[in-house]
């Protein structure tokens, strides 16, 4: 997109209340940071983005819409930052519903004192992530709160996508004998953030797996159109997603410990802190349920995509106690994998 006018610049090094006041300082900030990063809209800047219906209608018969708030500490971490997270997270929420993500909004709440350079970096990162995912950031909002009232920056993104007419992904479609697949290493994001936070003084080369999954989803759905359902395994990890799936389908799901893809550093982190990797957050991992006779096709399609190279079948659904998720341990024993009560905390015992 071309800039139709000269963009104003912000000279201040830090965000102040003035940048949220609705006056010139705010307009300059939006110009310098957001318009510069995201590009100017086709029309003049109004209070809303205006989106043509016709190209949307050509690709599907339903809109998908989702909204997600992003708070993360630290704002910048190996493998991503709050900006890429805010784009990928919302894109993924659309993609796992079978939607083709198209538009995003971006609403930021800034804490006074946030370095303007950090905000520029976050905005650039959002733009890069949006470009990679093939979505446009078309509208947004900026608010500034007092120091201490938020943690640097909070971002809310809302996404709109189109669902092609033939697609019907739903966790209620899961049937006994269906196979559960993930597209790669589990727990990278959760473990990388724990290390990046620094308060446990752990150092690793781990990076967040933060990535937009819409391309991967398309590859999978092309190969296996009768995929039952998809979920992205963010907060609460794979265990939480599987519990929701078992609950909705009134089936049991059994996981195989031996086939869980875990990096050695994630295992190391979990051993040191007494955490269970099944509950660690991911930001670029989906859980796919496919009919058993399509498992090989699904796995092959995922593995052909860069984000699915390490895909693995991790379990299957069966008609057992409704809503139950279990893990068959390497040792041949079995244990229940329940929903977590609260947040997983490091332990010494």
């Amino acid at each position, binding site marked *: 997109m071309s800039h139709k006018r000269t963009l104003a610049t912000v000279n201040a090094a830090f965000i102040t209340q003035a940048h949220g006041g609705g006056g010139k300082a705010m307009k300059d900030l939006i110009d310098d940071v957001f318009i510069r990063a995201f590009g100017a809209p086709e029309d003049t800047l109004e209070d809303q983005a205006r989106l043509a219906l016709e190209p949307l209608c050509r690709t599907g018969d339903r809109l998908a819409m989702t909204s997600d708030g992003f708070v993360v500490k630290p704002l910048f971490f190996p493998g991503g930052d709050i900006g890429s997270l805010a784009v990928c997270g919302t894109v993924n929420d659309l993609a796992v519903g079978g939607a083709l993500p198209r538009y995003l909004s971006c609403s930021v709440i800034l804490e006074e004192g946030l370095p303007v350079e950090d905000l520029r970096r976050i905005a650039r990162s959002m733009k890069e992530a949006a470009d990679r995912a093939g979505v446009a950031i078309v509208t947004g909002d900026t608010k500034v709160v007092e120091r201490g009232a938020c943690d640097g920056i909070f971002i809310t993104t809302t996404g709109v996508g189109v669902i092609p007419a033939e697609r019907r992904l739903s966790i209620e479609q899961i049937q006994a004998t269906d196979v559960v697949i993930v597209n790669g290493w589990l727990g990278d994001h959760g473990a990388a953030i724990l*290390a990046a936070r620094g308060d446990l003084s*752990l150092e690793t080369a781990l990076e967040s797996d933060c990535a937009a999954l819409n391309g991967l989803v398309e590859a999978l759905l092309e190969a296996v159109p009768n995929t039952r359902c998809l979920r992205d395994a963010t907060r609460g990890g794979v265990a939480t997603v599987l519990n929701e799936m078992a609950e909705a389908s009134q089936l049991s799901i059994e996981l195989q410990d031996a086939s869980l893809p875990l990096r*050695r550093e994630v295992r*190391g982190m979990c*051993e*040191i802190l007494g955490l269970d990797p099944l509950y660690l957050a991911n930001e670029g991992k989906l859980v796919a349920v496919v009919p058993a006779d399509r498992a090989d096709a699904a796995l092959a399609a995922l593995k052909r995509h860069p984000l699915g190279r390490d895909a693995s079948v991790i379990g299957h659904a069966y008609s057992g106690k409704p809503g139950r998720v279990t893990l068959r341990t390497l040792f041949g024993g079995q244990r229940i994998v329940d929903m977590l009560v609260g947040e997983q905390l490091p332990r*010494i015992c």
Partner: protein
Amino acid sequence: MCLGIPGQIITIDDIDNRLATVDVSGVRRQINIACIIDDAHPPESCVGDWVLVHVGFALNRIDAAAAERTLAMLDMLGDTHELDALIDSQEKRQ
């Protein structure tokens, strides 16, 4: 009650304060090694040692030969007589 994990000492960071860095499956952390050093094991000799890490402290050196013996005992369970002999020999060693 006590989560302990094997790690390998990779550097000695501060001899006076008994600090070293340990590697646990690709995760590094500074730990205190006061409990595993003595005249026979001065700090500088500890690099490469495998230790049991608990709450940021190395609490003991891991005896690799003893680990081998333990596994050998399990492998010998096919033969009850050999197992008895091995248990006896382990008891004597103590």
